[in-house]
């Protein structure tokens, strides 16, 4: 087995950055500015940031499912994965700061431990994952524990979005985006499975 740390990183193309940044910025601008037309601007923004994060994480999940353990991850994955985290952090800042007066305990009081806890856990674990993806040489070809970690993170992130958007479905927008994301994930699995079949 080749020493993975010596494999070259996947090729980086500038449009990967340009396009993912564009997606992030447009969603951010939409969430911020379209809020002005809404009856409750903070409420809208908090939600729109969450929807945006769900939209940004979807391509990352797709790529991850298609490639995990079969081919090296790409910069597309890493960039969308990162921007999605930034957006969910913005969501958290809005939700915590403007709707909960910066008092995280009140989130627990209101939502109960089992709903509030994963939200904060997600924020932390996902950040660790991103930090590793930008610092480890083997981010694109993980092995051993790191590989399982990445797999776990993808499941954990998706599960969080799924529960929040499809199970709780507080509004139509959430449900639609949640279902879209789920459909993309299922499609990715089907394609992955198909690919496997053919390569066998």
């Amino acid at each position, binding site marked *: 087995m080749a020493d993975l740390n010596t494999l070259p990183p996947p090729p980086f193309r500038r*449009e990967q950055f340009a396009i993912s940044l564009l997606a992030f910025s447009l969603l951010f601008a939409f969430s911020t500015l379209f809020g002005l037309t809404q009856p409750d601007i903070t409420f809208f923004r908090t939600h729109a940031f969450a929807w945006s994060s769900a939209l940004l994480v979807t391509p990352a999940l797709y790529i991850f499912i298609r490639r995990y353990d079969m081919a090296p991850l790409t910069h597309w994955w890493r960039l969308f994965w990162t921007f999605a985290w930034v957006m969910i952090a913005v969501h958290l800042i809005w939700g915590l700061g403007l709707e909960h007066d910066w008092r995280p305990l009140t989130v627990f009081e209101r939502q109960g431990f089992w709903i509030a806890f994963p939200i904060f856990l997600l924020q932390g674990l996902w950040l660790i994952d991103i930090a590793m993806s930008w610092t480890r040489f083997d981010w694109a070809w993980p092995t051993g524990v790191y590989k399982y970690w990445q797999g776990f993170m993808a499941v954990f992130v998706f599960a969080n979005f799924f529960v929040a958007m499809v199970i709780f479905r507080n509004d139509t927008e959430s449900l639609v985006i949640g279902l879209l994301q789920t459909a993309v994930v299922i499609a990715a699995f089907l394609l992955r499975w198909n690919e496997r079949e053919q390569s066998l």
Partner: protein
Amino acid sequence: MIRKVVNIIAIVVSCLALVASLGWLWLEGRWSAWSPPQGDVAEVGYDAFTKGAFGLEAFPLKYAVVAGRVSSAAFTTTVEDGRSLWETYGFLPNSKAAALKEPLCESNADQWLPYGFAVTNYVPMTAVQTSLKFAGLTCSSCHSGQLRHADGTLSQPISGMGNMDLDVIAFTDAVRNAVMDPDLTADKILDAYAKVCPDESTGLIDGIVEKIMLGGWLSGVRESMGGDTAKYGLPYHGIQMKQASDIPAGPGRTRPFCSIVRVAMDLPGDDNYAYSKIPVVFEQNQDLRPRAQFDGSLGDPVTRSFIAAYASGASIKALSKPEIVHNIKAAAAYTEQLGIAIPVKPFAAHFPDHAPAAADVERGLTVFQEHCADCHGHRPIASDPTKVEPWVAEGKYLHKMEGVGPLAPADGGLGVDAERVTFRYAHDLPLAIWTTLPGNPKIAAVQEKRLDKAIIDAQDAKAPALAYFWQKQKEKFLLTKRQYRLGHPLYFPACKEGDETCTDESLLDRAPPCSLDVNADPQTCEITAFEAFVNNPIPYAFLRAPYLHNGSVPTMAQLINLEKRPDQFCRGQNVYDPEMLGYTAPPPVDGKCTDPRQAFLFDTGVRGNGNGGHNYPAWDPDALTDQQRADLQALLAYLKTI
């Protein structure tokens, strides 16, 4: 090559989008920067009461400058008689306006905007703050008045007195008319403004934002008012705005329940005949006045203040902004002390020539003790007539409710016009208002349960449509609950700061529906809807004219049966009569009020305008004995001193 161009475009667009949104957020922070003012209640409270934003923004300030020009058709009533737009609707003039030489512009608005207008930067309804300045109503627009002397001079504005000139409903209709005008555009407003105030300049960014927001405001308000015509009808215009047959409230009165049924329940208010005089708001302290509103429906002073703003059209969102919350609380605290720690000029200070003789006052107090004090408590006579003694809140029936309609005691009860308390949906209102503001999670859970109970109760009462109504209210509640996760900052009942004994559980006993007993003693329910009027102290009685909740009795002499109560009279800018303690309200000639300044015909035969009842002492003004007449004259003298 193409790839490179696409990349560059994508990055440039991204940067622009980020700069625009981050820049906007930064500006928002700047526009909404606010820190709580420091000072005592007299000062901070006064500012909140007279200049504070309450989410009642009427229109942009620049539009206020040019409204008379660009929207003259909408504002003209035809009875101007040389008065300014503002004065025609009864707003109190700005005392600095006469001396102002420069044109009236945004920068000197504090010198010409009528007394009791706030300059704010909240966009109506959404309460987003931008660089676009608005002129908005405050508590003082309604709750500050002036006394008009026979020689035409006006007293200084009196904080806490009802503005008896104010035609607030007509003004609202004029504004609706103006903004629904298809010819009115943002450019038209700004062009007209630039002509009036050519020297004013707005910064580049602020200017752009202002223009966009002005256009946005206009289209938004037009859409919402246009869309609301199903609920509100088309506004009246021209002389209709001053005619009782079209706008029955007239000067000094509003239809608060018509509005609140609309805003809290989303039901039409047109069949509502509850006309309320704008009351004085002195001595709101709960020791003296545990419950307020004419029907004693509200306990906590902050809630009184909140309901006032909410019924006048402030959105829940606006009412959650820290500055507005501060203003609501500071204004409430101000009314609690106004007349007590914060002095209000008594009658003798306004009318030194009419100060009553000490002997009459003394005799009057005994008459008052005999006929009135059981219900109203009393004020001891002050040695210095320009001061008042503290009100004594003692009386057999003080703070109790006097029933009307079905609740009236067998002896006929108070007998005043009952429309104020018997209107449709009155009994569903407390729960609807209470659940408008979601409480903290614990209280919100109870609010939800009570809404569920209302649905079940409606089904049990064989009123399925009412069950549907409560279901809709519940959906609305669940949405607002998500918007105010920790509870709306003004939810009630709430524990007072520093009150250690208060718990959420103890609060809930005070939440509706919590009392079926009209005279529970003490009545702790935070919001009630009894078919009754409350017996409260009547401090500064001379400033309460025209009397009774519907303003149907012009003078005190008429109220106490010293003179006959008129069936019809003309209202508008009436002169104050210090002898009879009230307004000189001339009778109509051939059924018409011809004086353009008193154009509103108050007909006590019209539904909601009844002037009967409160027949104390129950003497016939046309057949008074000499003894009775002397007693009543003495009583009148005493009433001048309280």
